[in-house]
């Protein structure tokens, strides 16, 4: 967490903590792990009441944040969500909200953005292929009479089955010459579309997964016709938008991971003081103490880099993408180190279904690979520095 917080931000945090305690602590989340949505009743609306989907949206469009720096505020909420393994499409809803706020048409803002902010609809982000590798373009758009046809399949789509709206990123590689002037000047870069899940040819399939606290699925598009009014931003010109969305997703998912790491670590620290072996608390043995010291260093360093990334993206710094990738790479590795390190300290009890540590391991591991694995982000860092792939 950022150590510099305003009183309003403290209040925001307290409110999030209180809500989570009442509605969705890990016990509840565990009970929900077999349901379709994975969410408590009316979870979206109730969290929307707390402003969870409004903070990246300007007041003019019904949004607003407590400090005027929406991403920093949202990162505080994300951390508390991570602590208690909160379910729901928190990251994708905010990504879609920011996309529509920045680039959406008036109609998209009126029809969809307002209901996202109010938690009345579930919108999600479909951007990677079925392998889960971060490459916009798993879906292709081709221009057709009066619009576009989308085809392809996206993987790792959060809440794919419950979503009513999909922000789809499509590669637009081939542009037939006969396409009208409205599509002239297309650079061949990605295009983003806001597509209703009910459109003909869209099919969402629920998947089971390692993470029991969040729902993922695939969405396939079979010659889905969409009108030009569904384009978000410029045709062929969405590269920068996708980059911005990625940065938001990275900051929020890293912040969730930090919360989860800190909570898991704290459980483990307490256990090491309570658990007695050889007539002493196990935390008094140097072998155990050093594992905890190293894990706590990873939590502190993770918080430091997460804060740096949040601030960089909030400020729109030119190197924000790089810092966000650093945070994702570093925290992604540290999350797994901590999840596995804590297992060791818990001994046998930690290996049981009833114990929460595997819920954290699952969530943290999913978070580590979602939106780009640490290795993927390290390669991206080299490319952002123009380190040539071929020397």
């Amino acid at each position, binding site marked *: 967490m950022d*150590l510099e917080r305003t009183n309003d931000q403290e209040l925001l945090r307290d409110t999030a903590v209180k809500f989570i305690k009442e509605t969705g602590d890990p016990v509840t989340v565990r009970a929900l792990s077999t349901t379709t949505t994975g969410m408590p009743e009316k979870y979206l609306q109730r969290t929307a009441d707390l402003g969870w989907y409004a903070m990246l949206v300007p007041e003019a469009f019904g949004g607003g944040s407590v400090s005027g720096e929406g991403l920093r505020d949202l990162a505080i909420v994300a951390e508390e969500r991570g602590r208690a393994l909160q379910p729901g499409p928190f990251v994708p809803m905010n990504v879609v909200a920011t996309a529509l706020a920045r680039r959406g048409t008036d109609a998209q803002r009126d029809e969809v953005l307002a209901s996202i902010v109010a938690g009345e609809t579930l919108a999600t982000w479909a951007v990677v292929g079925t392998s889960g590798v971060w490459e916009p373009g798993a879906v292709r758009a081709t221009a057709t009479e009066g619009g576009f046809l989308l085809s392809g399949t996206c993987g790792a789509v959060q809440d794919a089955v419950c979503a009513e709206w999909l922000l789809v990123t499509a590669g637009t590689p081939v542009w037939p010459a006969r396409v009208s002037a409205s599509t002239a000047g297309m650079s061949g870069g990605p295009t983003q579309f806001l597509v209703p899940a009910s459109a003909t040819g869209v099919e969402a399939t629920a998947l089971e997964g390692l993470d029991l606290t969040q729902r993922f699925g695939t969405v396939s598009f079979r010659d889905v016709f969409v009108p030009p009014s569904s384009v978000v931003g410029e045709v062929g010109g969405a590269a920068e938008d996708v980059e911005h969305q990625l940065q938001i997703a990275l900051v929020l998912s890293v912040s969730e991971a930090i919360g989860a790491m800190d909570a898991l670590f704290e459980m483990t620290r307490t256990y090491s003081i309570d658990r007695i072996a050889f007539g002493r608390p196990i*935390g008094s043995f*140097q072998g155990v*103490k050093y594992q905890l*010291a190293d894990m*706590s260093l990873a939590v502190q360093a993770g918080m430091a880099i997460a804060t740096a990334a949040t601030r960089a993206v909030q400020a729109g710094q030119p190197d924000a993408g790089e810092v966000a990738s650093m945070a994702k790479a570093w925290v992604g590795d540290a999350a797994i180190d901590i999840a596995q390190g804590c297992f060791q300290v818990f001994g046998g009890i930690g290996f049981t279904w009833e114990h929460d540590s595997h819920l954290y391991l699952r969530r943290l591991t999913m978070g580590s690979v979602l939106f780009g694995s640490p290795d993927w982000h*390290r390669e991206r860092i080299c490319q952002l520095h123009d380190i040539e792939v071929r020397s």
Partner: protein
Amino acid sequence: MNTTETLPDMNIYRENARRWLAEHMDQRPSSDASAESGLATEEFLKKKIATARALQRKLFDGGYSGITWAKEYGGQGLPLEYDVAFLEAAEHYVMPDFDTFNSTTFDVCVPVMLEHSSPEFLRSFIPKVLAGELLVCQFFSEPSAGSDLAGVRTRATRDGDQWVINGQKIWSTLAQFADWGMCLTRTNWDVPKHRGLTWFAVPCDSAGLTIRPIRQITGSPHFCEDFFDDVAVPDGYRIGEVNNGWTVTQSMLVRERGAARSADTMSPTGPGDLVPDLVAAARKAGQLADPVVRQKLARAHTNDYVSRALGFRIAQMTAQGDLNTGVAAYGKLFKGVYTPIRARIGVEIAGAGAMTWDPATPGADATALAYLNGRLISIAGGTNEMQRNGIGERVLGLPREPSFDTSKPFNEVLLDSAHWNGKD
């Protein structure tokens, strides 16, 4: 700081600093300034320190030395923001670089003296420090006491209004160039070890003090062993109360672990260029396109930036009142763990080609030297293990390791340790 005085306007202060720097100091060459490579020989170190002294004098004369230090001791008595503002303005200028004295003198010893020495001593001593005339080394470790600093055996005995010191110190960095040393001694042997310690400031040219350089693993004579034979120091050089040296030690340890530095309180700037030294090594080895090498480059670059971000976080914690040796230990442990990893990455990327070099090519031994020096920070100033003890016990509140030497008189500890059986 005198609160009745009004502070200079920050914008004017900044502007004046910029103007003064432009007039008096040299810009840093924009080319890769890491050209300071090669072995730190006695000659090299001597020249480096002499250059730094001259630059420090300029700062002092310009009123930019000891910006936060008390006016009565020759400082400027300004709040931290002014120091940060000056550091920011000075970013692209050549500033005095005293090698390890940057930390031993300016970050550790002298700030501790400011807290614990007598005002009379400080009034004559500190202005000379600020002018670059006095450099202070650390006479802490001994052949039989390193991590266990409270176990020192150098003896100080009172003789009228002076003290007589006998014993041996070791690993004292750059002591052969120091003017003074901050020395930990035992003044009472009949009480538990933490309760019989006293600190002194000792002039290095004292009669009876012999300082001998020791070569480090690189071959550089970067630290010394120091023999104290009836070295007499006046009581006025004492730092803190007699037998209350452990209190002084604690404030020393916080600083040694790197808390409370103005530079850290500056919000870290961007990550900057991708590890230029390692990229150059990879290019030279023809490995820049290798995906495994690229992973290592980005890993080193990320770790470097996380270390800076962590330094900033610790400075924030310190500013919020968490001046705890354990919290400071995070930054030290991070460096102690990741510096050797970075040095190793250098060797892995550069390969055999960098493990042999033509002595005529300047800087060709950089990877090898960095590799050897990579371990330094894991040991010097408190080992990684001591940082883990500190974090575990002081920050995480884990129960302490059972100890066998803290409650009995130090005399007995010495006798018992020879046949210690794990029972008492």
